[in-house]
């Protein structure tokens, strides 16, 4: 299922709008009419609709009204209006969930879209990485084990994140150093050992085994895929 596909009304969408959505990592489709919106609708339904009202608002409001009448479950809708059109929002509360003033600031629009999707439970953010009792919130940089928060330094967090993203895989120290620290770091490959040792201590005895030493190779997070 396409988790997050947006329908964008306004044909064609302005380059600013297209760029903002692309940079935000959204999948979207431009639609010129309610019929097209129905025709191109993904199997899981639109996760949201953005209506760019443009200079002539009547078509836009008609489109919004049709979308809103659909049963079952209408996707959340965000309207883009110019300052001069603000008064048109009055008495149209039922047509949109949120609006953004055009021309818009990309960061604002991105935040509003994210919030729009999150509010209806459609968004997948905040991104949570979980492995058994370990949980990493990739947005807030917070990690916890068995609901106990872990106090990590930045590099400890980055190493744990990288390992948890690749469970069961074996990494050499050099690989970890390059992938997590980057080349310019001057700690050397043993830095990895130092950080693994620290992470194990912070995970606590019970969970220290999450990071396993693979003799004369490197480290592996979690179970090996062969179950050893």
């Amino acid at each position: 299922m396409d988790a997050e596909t947006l329908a964008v009304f306004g044909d064609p969408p302005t380059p600013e709008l297209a760029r903002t959505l692309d940079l935000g990592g959204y999948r979207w489709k431009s639609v010129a009419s309610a019929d097209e919106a129905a025709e191109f609708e993904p199997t899981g339904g639109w996760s949201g609709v953005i209506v760019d009202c443009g200079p002539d608002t009547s078509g836009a409001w008609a489109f919004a009204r049709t979308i809103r009448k659909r049963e079952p479950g209408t996707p959340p809708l965000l309207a883009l209006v110019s300052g001069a059109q603000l008064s048109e929002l009055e008495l149209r509360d039922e047509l949109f969930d949120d609006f953004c003033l055009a021309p818009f600031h990309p960061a604002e629009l991105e935040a509003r879209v994210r919030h729009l999707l999150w509010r209806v439970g459609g968004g997948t953010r905040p991104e949570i990485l979980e492995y058994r009792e370990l949980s990493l919130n990739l947005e807030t940089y917070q990690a916890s084990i068995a609901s106990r928060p872990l106090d990590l330094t930045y590099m400890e967090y980055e190493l744990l994140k990288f390992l948890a993203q690749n469970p069961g895989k074996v990494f050499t120290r050099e690989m970890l150093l390059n992938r997590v620290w980057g080349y310019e770091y001057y700690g050397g490959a043993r830095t990895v050992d130092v950080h693994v040792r620290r992470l194990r201590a912070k995970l606590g005895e019970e969970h220290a085994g999450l990071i396993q030493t693979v003799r004369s190779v490197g480290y592996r997070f979690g179970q090996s895929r062969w179950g050893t």
Partner: protein
Amino acid sequence: MLEQQREYVLRSVEERGVRLIRLWFTDVLGSLKSFAISPAELENALDDGMTFDGSSIDGFSRIQEADVLAIPDPDTFELLPWGDTKAPEARVFCDIHNLDGTPFGGDPRQVLRRHVRACHERGLTFYVAPDIEFFYFAPPQAGRRPEPLDEASFFDLTTNDITGSLRKQTIRTLEAMGIPVEYSFHEDAPSQQEIDLRHTDALTMADSVMTFRLIVKEIAASQGLHATFMPKPLEAQQGSGMHTHLSLFEGDRNAFFDADDEYQLSALAKSFMAGLLRHAAEITAVTNQTVNSYKRLVPGFEAPVHVSWARNNRSGLIRVPIAKRGNPNATRIEYRSPDPACNPYLAFSVMLAAGMRGMAEGYELPVEADANLFEIDDEVLAKLGIAHLPQSLSDALRAMEGSELVHDALGEHIFEWFLINKRTEWREYKTHVSMFEIDRYLRAL
């Protein structure tokens, strides 16, 4: 990377509800200094640093160049595992800069950073693992001798005793702060403890030693006791040292190891050792910086007195421990003179500088001195070319003063200030009339 680290720190402060951020740095003599800022100030501190009056810190600015800038190193940001859990606090080490952004010459952390970088430019990483000894005492009282808490000795399993539980709590806190402990035990003297840290790169280790000393003292104080890193607090007992294990790595490979050598030491390791030995006297004022330090460096207490090396001779200055199961990564040398009252940034800097000089100049390693040197006459030693370490702070300062190596290693600012400060200390000591003299001479003479 820096941008992400910054973001990580700011976000963690917000998410964890940190109320206070302690900015840590170190003065020339190795005392930890700290000032606290609120979370609201943190972003600004990370971007531009925090200005403060350096003339209030020992060995920092002279009056006319008073203001300096503390710039937090986001890599060292860490929550403090003690204190009120409802109002958590965090710490971050700072590098001190001049207002124009250049590294400040009086900042020991910047000195070590410079050496570590130079080492890196040669493709090498300097690893350090100190064994830190210290004592627990009842709270000190003016004019009274320190009072040990137990009568146990080396490796004793003292059940139900307070120092054991203090040590346990200390280790738990160290581990929570990302300072891994390799061993810990009750040392030889009453109330003496030893905690051995696992190797890290030198800069991280210097930060860790600073944190270590604070944690040990804090935890003792929380039980109404006193922990001290004074090198020789009890007259007839062993003093506290900080034997420091050193190695150089080239990527994953231990550059000190050579399977074909009879000592399993590479040529590089040997010239590094030769550098340390040749410049040992010059760097001793830095590794042993108090009047009291030299009361530890006397015969009969497992502290080095002579400039020598050996594989398993604890009377030598450098010991080459035998690696477990011939593990190449475990090959290292142990420099045995430093004491835990030193400034770890400067001590690691001069050790590295001396070793690197030996490598650069291709110094020849003298022969191993495997006899117990404490039992050999000075004349015989002189014939063997084995010199004494400096016998007093005054001796050590004289050796340091003439050393171009130490001058360059510390930089003009610290070199000059250190000599002035320590000369003053020596002068005050020299004019002091001790109980020893009263007891011995007052009646008899």
